[in-house]
Structure formats: C-alpha cells, structure tokens
C-alpha cells in the first residue's frame, strides 16, 4: 500500500467514523512516521522555525551589524512596505510587467519546442533533444554572463548579425542597446530564459507522449488538420502539464533575481527597470542590512505568491482536463 493509498484509506475511515487501529496498524503508522521524521524534522528546523523567526524580525528594526540596537517597532515595517515605501509597489509592478512579457513567450516557446521534438517528421530528434537540453547544464550565472557578451551593443554578435542581415543600424551608440534600453531590457532577459527551457521542454514532451495516438488517428480519419489536432486534442489533453508549468513559472517569475543581480549588482539599471521585487528585497536585507524590513518584504511576497497560486488553482477547474476527473 502506497502512502497516498494509505491517506485515502484514512480519509474513508474518517468518513465512516473513527476506527480503532489494530496493533499492526499502529506499528505500521509508527514506522511510517519514523521514515517521515527526517523530512518533518528538517521542515520544522529549516523552514518553519526560520519563517517564524523572520516574522518576528519583521516587527523589529534590526540591523545585524549592530544587533544590540535592535528595537521592537510593532507593525511599522509593514506600514512602510504597504503605505510609505513607493519602491515596494514599483518593484512589484516591474516584476508583474516582466512576467507578462516573459511568461507567455517562454511557455509557448517551450511548448513549441516540445511539439517539434515530438513530431514524427523531425529526423535525429534525440540529437536535438540533447542539444536543446544542454544549456540547462550550464550554471545560470555563467549563462547570464555569456548572454551579456552576446548582447553587447558594440561587439555582441546578435547586433552584428541583425545589422548585416537587415541593414538596420544595430551596432554602436545608436544601435540596439538590449541591456541598457528600458524598452528592450525585458526582452533581453526573456532571451536568457529561453536559453534554459530544456527542463520545461522535457516535461512538456512527457505530457505529449502520454496523449494516446489512437485519438490522433481517429481525428485524422475524420479530416482534422494539424492545427485542429493541436488545439482540439493535444493542448486540452496536456492542460495538467501546462497548469503545472504555469504555476511553477509564476512562482519563479515572482522570485526573479539572478540575472539582474549578476549583470547590474541589483542597481536596477537601466532606469530602475530591473529592480524587481526580489532584487529590492535582497538589497534591503543584505546590502543595506535592514533585516527587519527585508523580513517584511519576504513575508509580503510569500502572501502574494500564495494568493496568486490559489487563484490559479481556483481557475484550474475551468480549463484543466484530468482524464480521471480527479485532481
């Protein structure tokens, strides 16, 4: 009996009323708990306890450089974050703005790649799958630095290629300044993300390979074309995978931090556009040592992520298809 089956059984037992556990059941429960205990202890020590501590910090004016000067200030940090500090609102909207651009592009590109890699018409699929997956093996920091060179306005080969192919003035001071132009920077950062879609592609691919081929054959016999099959069969049947990717991507977007930090040390360059919420949180906590205020910002983001995830789960019943009709 698996753990989940056990849970189901317990639910049914509960529904029937309390059932007295036999000695064997108790021993089995104890064994189960014993096996679970490393995770439970780890969760309590390394997640729950720090979370409680960070909430307590959020009620203090606390600078780790002068811990003896820590002062209880009640909800002043919360008031500052929610009412006074405009940068909190701005950095949050920048994060949402970036998410609105990068998330649809990244998800659809990942799905597109997976569909391509699942196509029977592509020769050497395994080689392509490996090639598309390979960038995910490169450390993200190294990848970001490589892209920084590739997108350099003076010497980056993307601008050189654009200029040579199209004749558009892409190189130089008047050219395409991917990382310095506020209008382009989110697209440039999205490009960094596209480089590492290998994991997402594999997950979509697994979903696509789970779609029964006989449904396609039946649709083909009925005269459905490729696009119709894609939108009427493939996409609906892999909505659980899309949903999974969407939830993870939303949370990852809210936590977006590494690229702007590596490229600009979190300065927000250009024009504050890359001072995303988590960058601002990091600066407050670990650069300015406003640890109490930083803890407040972390809690706010936790609450926002919780609400957004709950909303996504709330909408799932309208568009996510589960063959077993159970989620």
């Amino acid at each position: 009996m698996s753990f989940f089956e056990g849970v189901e059984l317990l639910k049914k037992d509960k529904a029937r009323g309390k059932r007295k556990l036999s000695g064997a059941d108790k021993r089995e429960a104890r064994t189960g708990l014993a096996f679970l205990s490393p995770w439970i202890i780890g969760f309590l020590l390394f997640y729950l306890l720090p979370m409680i501590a960070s909430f307590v910090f959020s009620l203090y004016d606390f600078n780790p450089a002068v811990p003896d000067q820590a002062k209880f200030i009640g909800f002043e940090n919360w008031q500052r974050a929610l009412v006074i500090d405009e940068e909190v609102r701005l950095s949050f909207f920048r994060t949402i703005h970036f998410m609105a651009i990068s998330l649809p592009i990244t998800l659809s590109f990942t799905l597109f790649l997976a569909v391509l890699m699942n196509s029977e018409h592509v020769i050497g699929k395994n080689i392509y799958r490996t090639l598309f997956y390979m960038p995910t093996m490169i450390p993200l920091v190294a990848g970001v630095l490589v892209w920084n060179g590739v997108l350099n306005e003076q010497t980056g080969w993307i601008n050189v290629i654009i200029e040579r192919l199209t004749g558009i003035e892409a190189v130089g001071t008047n050219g395409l300044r991917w990382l310095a132009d506020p209008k382009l920077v989110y697209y440039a950062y999205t490009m960094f993300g596209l480089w590492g879609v290998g994991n997402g592609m594999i997950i979509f691919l697994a979903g696509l390979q789970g779609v029964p081929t006989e449904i396609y054959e039946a649709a083909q016999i009925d005269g459905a074309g490729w696009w119709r099959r894609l939108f009427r069969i493939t996409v609906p049947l892999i909505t659980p995978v899309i949903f999974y990717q969407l939830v993870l991507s939303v949370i990852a977007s809210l936590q977006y931090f590494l690229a702007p930090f590596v490229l600009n040390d979190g300065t927000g360059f250009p024009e504050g556009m890359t001072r995303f919420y988590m960058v601002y949180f990091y600066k407050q906590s670990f650069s300015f040592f406003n640890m109490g205020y930083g803890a407040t910002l972390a809690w706010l983001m936790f609450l926002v992520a919780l609400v957004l995830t709950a909303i996504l789960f709330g909408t799932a019943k309208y568009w996510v298809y589960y063959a077993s009709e159970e989620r």
Partner: protein
Amino acid sequence: MKKLWLVLAALVIASLVLTACGGATAPEAPMEEAPAEEAPVVEETTEEEAPAEEAASGKTQVRWYVGLGAGTDEGAIPLEEAFVEVFNASQDEIELVLEIVDADNAADTLATQIAAGNPPDIVGPVGIKGRDQFKGAWLDLAPMIEANNYDLSGFDPSMVDFYLVKEEGQLGIPFGIFPSFVLFNKDLFDEAGMPYPPAEYGVPYVDADGVEHEWTIEYITELAKLMTVDGNGNDASMEDFDNENIVQFGWENLWTDWRGAGTMFGAGSLAAADGSAQMPEQWVEAIKWTYDGWWNEWYIPNGAYAGAEFLQGPGGTFSSGNMAMVQMHTWYLAPWALGEVAFDWDVAAMPSYNGVTTAKMHADTFGILKASDNSEAAFEVLTYMLSEEHATDLLTIYGGMPARLSLQDDYYGIHAETNLAGKEINWDVIAAGMAYADNPNHESWMPSYLETNDRYNETWNYFANTPDLTEEDIDAEIATLVADLQAIFDAAE
C-alpha cells in the same frame, strides 16, 4: 523482522539528522574565492583549538578580519600571513589570527558574525564606505588613545580628524592615504604632438605653440576634446568628427561616482548640515559638464561606449591604451593595473574650478569592533600595525601612502621598487595633491549610506545612458533625485 526494520530506520534517520545538522561541505569555490573559503578554517581553529592554546601559552587571541577593503587578492595573502607570523613571533601575550573573506561576501559574513555574537576584533583595511556600512558597530578609540598615551603627533591633524565621527568618536587612527591626480598616457600625447599636462600645482599648461593656459577644468575640457579621436583621425573639436566611430577618448573620472566626479568641481555632501538631502551647486555643474562630455562633446566615454572592446583593459579604460587622461588614486599605481601596459604614462596636477583645486582623497585604516571581547589586546595589535616600524610592511601590500608623516619620504622609493620597478613617477605632484584633499570627503557619511549610494547612482547611470537631454531635463531629474534622497534620509531616522 519488524524490529530489524525499526533499527534500520532509526539508523537511517539518525544519520540523516546528523548529516543535516553537521557542517555543510564547503562548495567548490572558483579560484578567486579561495580567500573566502579560508576564513572558516581559521574560525574553526579559533573555536576549537583556542582553549588548548590559551591554556598552553596563555595568549589572548585577536582576530583580524580582512575583506571590506584591500587585502583579499592572491598576491596580498601570503604577505599578510607573513606579517601575522612576525607579529606572533614577537609576542608572548597575544596571538593574532588572520581571517580573510572574499570582498564579495565580506560585508555579509561580518554582519552575520556580529549578529551571531562571534565578531572579529580588528577589521581592515577599510575605507570610509566600508566603515559607514557598519555604522554604529565601531569602537570609539579615544579612551584607549588617552589611557595608553598613544602619540598622534606623527600625523597631520586633519587626517586624525578624518576619523573623528560625530556622535561616534575617534573610529580610526590614520594609516594609509591615497591622494588623487591626473594620470595620463604619454604615448598618446606624443602621437598628437601635444605637451604633457602640468607636472606641478600652480603652473599653467603650455600648449604646442608655447601659449600658456591656466590649468582649469575649462582648459582640460579643450585638451580632452583634442585627445578624443575617431576612426578617421579627426579629433572631437573638428566638424567632421564621427561620434559613432570613436577610437580614443580624452578624459574620464575613472571608477568613481557622482560624488567623486563632482568633487573635482569642489568638495560637498549630499547631506546638508541640518540633515536634509541636497545636491551641492558645484556637483550640479559637474554632472552637466560630464553629460556634455558623454553626449555632446564626446570626450568622455558614455554608457554606450563603456562596453566597447577598445576600452577594455585590466585597469579599466586607462590601461586599454586608448584613454588619454583619467583622475585616479595611488592605489591604481600597481602591477595589476599598470604592470602590463604597452605605453608610457605619468601623473600630473588636478585642474582647478573657479580658482579652487580639489584632489579627492581615499583613506584606509583598521577599526576595532564595539562587540570585540578583547578590545585592549586589539588596540595593542593596532598600534603595532600602525607603528613607525611596521606600518610600511602593510602599506606596501595595500599600495597606500603612509599617513604617518615620518614615513612618507621613504615610501615613494619603496613603493616604486616593490610594485613598478624601473618606473619613474612624479611623486612630488602626488604628495602636493594632499594639500588639496576634499573636505568634506566625497565618501563621507550620509544617512542610509548604501541605499543613498544606489539611488544617486541610478540617476548617474540614467544620464550616462540617455542622449538628447536638455539642461531642464537634467535639473528635473536632479530635483526628483533630491526628493527621493530625502525620503531615504527620513526612513533612516
């Protein structure tokens, strides 16, 4: 059988818990982070071996933390270790323990150590910026200076006052100073047939026709334009100059920010005497001059040119060989920046603005943390480090000029011999620059130091990367900046 399972499970759990709670294996660090990985080893020695050593030798351990300023590069570490070894050999009461943390992690590591109640005793070398990041954490040395009759007469009084911080006390004793000057590429001036900038303060620039020009910012602007060249060989003063094909620039206030560049126009502070935010008038002039150099007259590399390949060198734009003049400090006169350059260079006087010359100054010293348990012993170590006999050993590692007046004469020869053997440098003009040091210092304290720093750098970067701004646009941005700084100052109260 079930008992066997239970025993096995208990063993697995115990091993997992022990693994989780035990010291994490240090991740493989890149080469340059080696110092950062060394620190925990030293700490372990402190915690685990100290009692035994204390019992055996009765020595008090003093921890010296390096990372907030110079001293973490590969070349410096063995020299610092040798210094510690010599100190320890001379002592029977104190044992000095060196902790070196990579500069990128040094501030966070130090904050964590202080918060965890495990602070080091001495921290440094540390500049004004590093010191102000830990505002409130430093010990006022005045009582110990008095109790130990420590003689401060060997220093310029203004340098002693440099470390006297309002409401906090004497946070340091002068150690190393780094005056600034004009550093210029002699080869580029020779190629252009232009005489070199003035080699002493108070003398004019004599041009190729023998005409004298007062050495002012107005004239250095003209010179910088003449030294800025495009791919066709036209300079920035010519009508045919192609600003999209520049191959050589005339001027840059290298590796500094608004406060640093602004100080060339006069010393000032973003915090007014009443604590409110302000932008000194001369710094407004400075940004307008700089903006002109970036986008209108093209003699300073703007944001778009900053990443250009022809301006890259180990010491930034100057060591690329395609930059005629920069403002720089003595810490730059070192092998890492100028050791490998394929051109000849020299130093010159800073120009004046409205009749006043200002040569911004950097200064480093060592501080003792308030949280130190061994502040008396730490002060003894500090006096050894700053003493006439031993300060030069450290200053040679960090490239600083001695703040102690008696050591300054010998310093130039020692520094040149150690760092740039065979190179003749006009030390006189560097020493003369000390008389024009900025007061208030451009790195001096502001409320919420790093946040303020971040905010004004954002505006600075905006100007560096945005062409076609009018003077009104610049004024409006400055007004917004001052309002934002005021909000930061208010929040810091």
